[in-house]
């Protein structure tokens, strides 16, 4: 059903700071701006990250691509069955968002999700504004206050596969990557992290020291996730957001069987890096 992770839209009260971070720290490429919003590319897509100061974005939004408009109706039916409400995006919103059709809804925790049809690609390749070794928007992690219901939503209504579990949390994918979406149990909802791929370990380590030098707080890593195999670096973005760079994430074959990892620190990092994100700290090793 869902084909790709497409974009993240974040509300902001300080567009200037958001632009500076996206350009100078993440090294993303400008892809259009107005007085109210600004967009950035990270790959062949028209945009991967958007900051909105208009007030129309109340909370972070995660956008996914589906192939056909008819699938939006199928999802709408499935959402109704789970007792969730939804809305179709107006033609004006679709035009402004650079896609043909769209559906928006909240998951059981209240996280905002959009599904869009035929979002734009760009003819010109992505050209980073800094040599970060970024390879594009790769994954997203969400906080869930209703982990069982949300897991059912993502696997049943939206058609993702569970690939591994850590404690109550679940990693989900729609392609051969270990995960594109992670749900972590939490007392609150919200976007936990926005993940970009990086070329290799050199890129991760170079960014690690670059961030340190520029006094940007690293909240995790570099560390290796025993679940996905990814080497990950997580750091603070504007207004409480967290961004990650990851490389060497496992590709899964069709015979992959989901595994259950204990909720402990070693399940989140095989190298022993502590994680300052409460949901990913794992308590004490047992």
């Amino acid at each position: 059903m869902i084909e790709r992770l497409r974009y993240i839209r974040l509300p902001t009260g300080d567009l200037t700071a958001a632009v500076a971070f996206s350009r100078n720290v993440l090294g993303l490429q400008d892809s259009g701006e107005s007085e109210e919003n600004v967009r950035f590319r990270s790959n062949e897509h028209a945009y991967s990250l958007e900051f909105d100061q208009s007030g129309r974005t109340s909370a972070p939004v995660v956008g996914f691509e589906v192939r056909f408009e008819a699938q939006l109706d199928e999802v709408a039916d499935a959402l109704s069955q789970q007792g969730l409400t939804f809305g179709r995006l107006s033609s004006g919103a679709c035009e402004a968002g650079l896609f043909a059709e769209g559906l928006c809804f909240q998951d059981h925790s209240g996280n905002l999700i959009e599904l869009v049809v035929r979002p734009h690609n760009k003819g010109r390749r992505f050209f980073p504004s800094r040599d970060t070794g970024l390879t594009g928007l790769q994954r997203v992690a969400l906080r869930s206050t209703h982990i069982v219901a949300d897991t059912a939503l993502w696997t049943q209504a939206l058609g993702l596969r569970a690939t591994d579990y850590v404690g109550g949390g679940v990693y989900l994918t729609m392609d051969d990557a270990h995960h594109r979406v992670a749900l972590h149990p939490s007392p609150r909802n919200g976007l936990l992290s926005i993940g970009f791929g990086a070329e290799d370990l050199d890129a991760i380590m170079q960014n690690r020291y670059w961030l340190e030098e520029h006094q940007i707080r690293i909240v995790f890593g570099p560390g290796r996730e025993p679940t996905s195999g990814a080497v990950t670096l997580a750091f603070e973005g504007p207004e409480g957001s967290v961004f990650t760079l990851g490389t060497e994430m496992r590709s899964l074959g069709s015979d992959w069987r989901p595994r259950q990892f204990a909720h402990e620190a070693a399940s989140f990092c095989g190298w022993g890096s502590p994680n300052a994100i409460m949901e990913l700290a794992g308590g004490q090793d047992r």
Partner: protein
Amino acid sequence: MIELKDVCYARLFTTDLDGASAYATTILGLQPAGIATGERQFRSDSRSHTLSYASGNPADNVIGFELADDRGLNDAGAALEAMGHAVHYGSSSEAERRHVSNYIAFNDAGGTHVELVVRPEVSGRRFFQSRDPGIAGFNHVGLFSSDPGRDELFWTRVFNARVSDRIGAIPLLRLDRIHHSIALVPAPRCGIQHINHQVESVDDIQRSHALLRQYRVPVVFGPGRHPTSGARFLYFQGPDGMVFEYSIGVTEVDELTHRERQFGFEPSSLCMWGSKNRVAEFGE
């Protein structure tokens, strides 16, 4: 030309034998291999030992290299004597203590104690590390040099060492296809500057980094990557001021096509990731 096969062992001296021995096993992860007349020996690979600690002056440390055979050893002794070096021919009991069939000892021009050995013993039992740093073996050393130009000539003209690369005045010398077995580090002193053990993967580097920080072992450089050899590395402090290094992925040099490169003496020549160096001799 005296042909060195490989680095063989480092013999270190300490004022705290128990402390240094504990470090060798619990921090470095080496395997205790026995005690020969007060000298505690440790394994890092298939060889009977590659590191030893004995009570004494830490400045007197010794680096051992392997030679092919006794004829090579005698030729080496004669050549070194002809150059004016005092050569000590090891007695059978001294050779036995080192687990070698024969050896000679001399000082290089700067005063570094060097031993050339023949037929160092390997062990029938496989190496079993004391903790799990993923050690793959003793690999190379950095030697202090009060005159790197003089010492480069010594190691490359008298011996078979070749320059793989230079960082400022630091020549990186190879004995075989491995990018370097000796680094000559400029400093107004002599002896071993650092001791490198290879590990199995970059994960091992990162795991040890987390563990060493937990143990409050001062990490002096890294985790980083040398643009010269391509190795991912971690340098940390050992007993008596010795620096130890774990690294992975030292490139092999193609003897026919490789030409040594000159890197500027600047931080990015020592680490392409941008880690901050706190080894004084590597510069600021």
